[in-house]
């Protein structure tokens, strides 16, 4: 028990930042919502205001549920209201009094009309059944390769929405059919708002803590760049599944509350209109942040009320008596729906990240405070900091990466033809060759990004040939990307931290330098609170490197780490790469076109041309090799030879 509790706390890396602050922020937001509701009820007296607030709070629970999945994974789901429908029907069928059921659904199968559960029991059953459905849908989503904005995932969730609707319409023995539906006793309402408060508070706290947990961070990293996340050792399918189940639990409880509050349920209740409403609430405030999602609920509830008011009493606008037929014609019933459609369209066009983007109260406050404080870690000296003796100590046992006869075909084109190389974790190995030689393809193949058609590769005797990217990364091959694949909307610090958290779980027996040390070794300390997408080119390259190092690899695979850098910058990278590889005791395999860099950093160099290996040796041998000169260095080398 104690051990499992300890494990639970450990998914929050920094208990203050990831547990106490979010807890406080969640509580504050919950308080604001409740207070807003109470004030509104006090001002607008009468039952309708009361009802509106209750509805808003339940909608807020629903939207928090949506945020947990859509916000963290970036997968656009239309199916959550389908999950809500499953939960709502399960709840209603089990919770409605048998006496009443005997009139509504007399012919229910499996003696369902004799079941009578209390409201909490029925909610529990609803949650359980919905989670089972979610697991099945989640497997389908994972198979389809769900990722941020994936069309496939959206269509699969839409299918769920339509199917639940169709089942509800065509299975009257259980659902009461299209028209009558299911209903609790006449005049029934939720007696007290306490269950709503309790659920909302719990949902907010769970959602916020999930966001700060390791799984939430991994999910957001994969949202930003699925491939890069996998290359760091994250398996996005797992994070997405956890997010899905958690969000579906919240949605299922909200749906049960909603049904109990309304008192009846027809198939069209949890269908398109409600999907539109909750999605608009989610995106208007900012789907990526909990604060934004809740703000959206308030804004849209108010906007919709205004639209409803305009459609009935709009001609009395501002005290003017605009009782013209034209005004009546424009402001009529249906205005709330078109308001929602226009809000969705308008926000997607003008502000796709919503009003608040990824603003989160606790993060912003914390950053504000930490900015005021002088930074505790001084900028390390860049020059002469490489200390080979230190790094030698940190080195684990030597590991060998062996690639034999690797072949990669793209359709009819053989990009890599039986290439064999090997590298030790104690050396820096260069891969050079003209464009199209197959260097990046080789890197892609041994990191599981493209499939090889023949040959094998192994690390320290472990065959990696058919493994998925994330498992290869966990075993110690971590790469950077030629065309920069950072987690754009995460901060520089978070980019490094995500990789380091993967290492914490999967590479705990390796030397793991602190996050701050990695950031400052890469020269990124001043930028640690910036978003990665705001960095310039050179710093982006250094962050790619820092993130890979933080994953505690046995081998760093660097794809053109100096591309786009000036000559001085790229020479400085020699030290940076050496020092950072030394921090984790990793070998380096590096692709680059900058020969000074290659000669300066490499112990050995392999040369590829048109998918085959044409030479290998020390940098000097390679430079002298006539085959290499012909294929790659060409006139350039000849010229240099003349000058020297």
């Amino acid at each position, binding site marked *: 028990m104690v051990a499992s509790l300890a494990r639970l706390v450990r998914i929050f890396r920094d208990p203050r930042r990831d547990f106490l602050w979010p807890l406080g922020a969640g509580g504050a937001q919950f308080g604001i919502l409740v207070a807003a509701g109470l004030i509104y009820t006090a001002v607008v007296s009468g039952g309708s205001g009361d009802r509106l607030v209750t509805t808003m709070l339940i909608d807020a629970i629903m939207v928090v549920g949506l945020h947990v999945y859509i916000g963290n994974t*970036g997968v*656009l789901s239309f199916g959550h209201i389908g999950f809500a429908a499953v939960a709502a029907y399960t709840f209603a069928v089990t919770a409605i009094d048998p006496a009443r059921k005997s009139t509504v659904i007399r012919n229910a199968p499996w003696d369902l009309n004799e079941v009578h559960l209390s409201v909490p029991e029925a909610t529990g059953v609803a949650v359980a059944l919905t989670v089972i459905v979610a697991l099945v849908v989640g497997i*389908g989503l994972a*198979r*389809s*390769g769900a990722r*941020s*904005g*994936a*069309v*496939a995932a*959206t*269509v*699969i969730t*839409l*299918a*769920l929405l*339509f*199917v639940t*609707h*169709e089942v509800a319409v065509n299975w009257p023995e259980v659902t009461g059919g299209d028209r009558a539906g299911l209903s609790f006793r006449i005049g029934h309402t939720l007696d007290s708002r306490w269950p709503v408060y309790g659920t909302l508070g719990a949902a907010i706290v769970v959602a916020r803590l999930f966001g700060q947990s390791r799984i939430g961070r991994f999910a957001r990293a994969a949202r930003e760049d699925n*491939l890069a996340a996998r290359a760091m050792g994250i398996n996005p399918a797992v994070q997405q599944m956890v997010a899905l189940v958690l969000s579906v639990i919240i949605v299922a409880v909200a749906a049960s509350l909603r049904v109990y509050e309304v008192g009846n349920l027809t198939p069209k209740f949890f269908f398109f209109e409600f999907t*539109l409403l909750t*999605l608009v609430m989610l*995106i208007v405030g900012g789907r990526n942040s909990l604060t934004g999602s809740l703000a959206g609920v308030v804004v849209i509830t108010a906007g919709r009320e205004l639209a409803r008011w305009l459609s009935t009493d709009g001609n009395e606008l501002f005290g003017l008596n605009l009782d013209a037929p034209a005004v009546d*014609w424009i402001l*009529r*019933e*249906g*205005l709330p*729906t*078109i308001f*929602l*459609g*226009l809000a*969705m*369209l308008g926000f*997607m*066009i*003008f502000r*796709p990240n919503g009003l608040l983007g990824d603003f989160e109260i606790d993060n912003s406050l914390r950053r504000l405070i930490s900015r005021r404080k002088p930074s505790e870690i001084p900028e390390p000296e860049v020059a002469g900091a490489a200390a080979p003796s230190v790094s030698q100590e940190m080195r684990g046992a030597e590991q060998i990466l062996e690639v034999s006869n690797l072949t990669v075909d*793209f*359709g009819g084109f053989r990009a890599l033809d039986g290439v064999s190389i090997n590298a030790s974790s104690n050396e820096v190995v260069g891969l050079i060759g003209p464009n199209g030689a197959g260097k*990046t393809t080789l890197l*892609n193949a041994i990191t599981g*990004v*493209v499939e090889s058609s023949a040959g094998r590769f192994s690390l320290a005797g472990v065959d990696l040939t058919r493994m998925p990217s994330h498992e290869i990364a966990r075993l110690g091959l971590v790469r950077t*990307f*030629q*065309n920069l*694949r950072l987690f754009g909307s995460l901060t520089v610090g978070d980019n490094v931290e995500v990789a380091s958290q993967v290492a914490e779980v999967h590479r705990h027996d390796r030397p793991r330098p602190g996050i701050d040390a990695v950031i400052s070794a890469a020269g990124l300390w001043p930028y640690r609170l910036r978003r990665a997408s705001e960095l310039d080119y050179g710093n982006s390259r250094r962050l790619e490197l820092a993130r890979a190092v933080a994953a505690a690899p046995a081998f760093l695979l660097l794809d053109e780490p100096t591309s786009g850098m000036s000559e001085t910058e790229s020479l400085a990278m020699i030290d940076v790469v050496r020092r950072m590889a030394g921090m984790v005791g990793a070998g380096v395999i590096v692709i680059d076109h900058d020969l000074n860099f290659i000669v300066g950093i490499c112990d050995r160099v392999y040369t590829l041309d048109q998918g085959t290996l044409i030479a290998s040796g020390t940098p000097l041998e390679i430079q002298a090799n006539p085959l290499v000169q012909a294929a790659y260095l060409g006139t350039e080398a000849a010229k240099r030879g003349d000058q020297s």
Partner: protein
Amino acid sequence: MTEFVQNLVDGLGRGSIYALLALGIAVIFGVMHLLNFAHGELITVSGYVAYWAFTHGASWVWIAPLVVVVSIAVSLAIEQVAFRWVRGAPDFTLLLTSFGVHYVVEATFLMYVSANVKTFNRPDWITRTLHAGSITFELFDIVVIAVTLVALAATALVLQRTMFGMALRAAADDFDVARLMGVRSNRVIRGAFALAGALAGIAAVFWLMRAGQTTPGAGITPMLKGVLAALVGGLGSLRGAVIGGFALGIAEVFLRSRLPDVVTGLTDGFVFVLIAVLFIFRPGGLITVRRAERV
């Protein structure tokens, strides 16, 4: 044998409409990487235009060209008002934008026209049949197939022989490279929406002739069938979309004649499940191969 040929013609007739819609969806996906869930709205709007023209005494001779013109205009207008502003946006934004368009159009008709079904007369030749030996054809199917083939041939000609067509095919293959080669993105995208609008307009004429009615939500079913057909062909492949359309039509008819009634109601929900299953097991479509992501 007789039944087989009859079913085949029937299936090709249905498939023609799907092919026209799917081709439009594929063309737009090619230039914008947008799976246009608002494509069916062209049929919704066309339906109300047809109804309006019908109540003003127009016959199908006038309604048909009017519908095509309106469909092109609406397609261009939607591009201008909505999609132009989200070009190059993340897929998440593109998807929600197309749903936003769908909701706004549907809600507009619901609010300012009517939620009720609006009916108009079908052309009187629609039920006529032709006999060839022991085989009976519906005249309507023959007309649909013939017109579709002409439309597809014309489209193929435009795509193969004109500068615009080349630009469009290049853009569908790799939009960024096409732009670097001097293809003007504005013109190509607008052209793509006009082409998709024209094809959807022709499809709308036949869809409405057969249905004889329209509602605010009338566009959903044809949109789904078009999307399914485009997916079968591998999204973005123009030839695949056409083949997917015909394949879907034929499959529908043959399933309907072979399976018991319960199974064959190819409702929206069932179409969606088919799309979902396709996505889960063959994300690259049944016909084309998946293209590797560049890293």
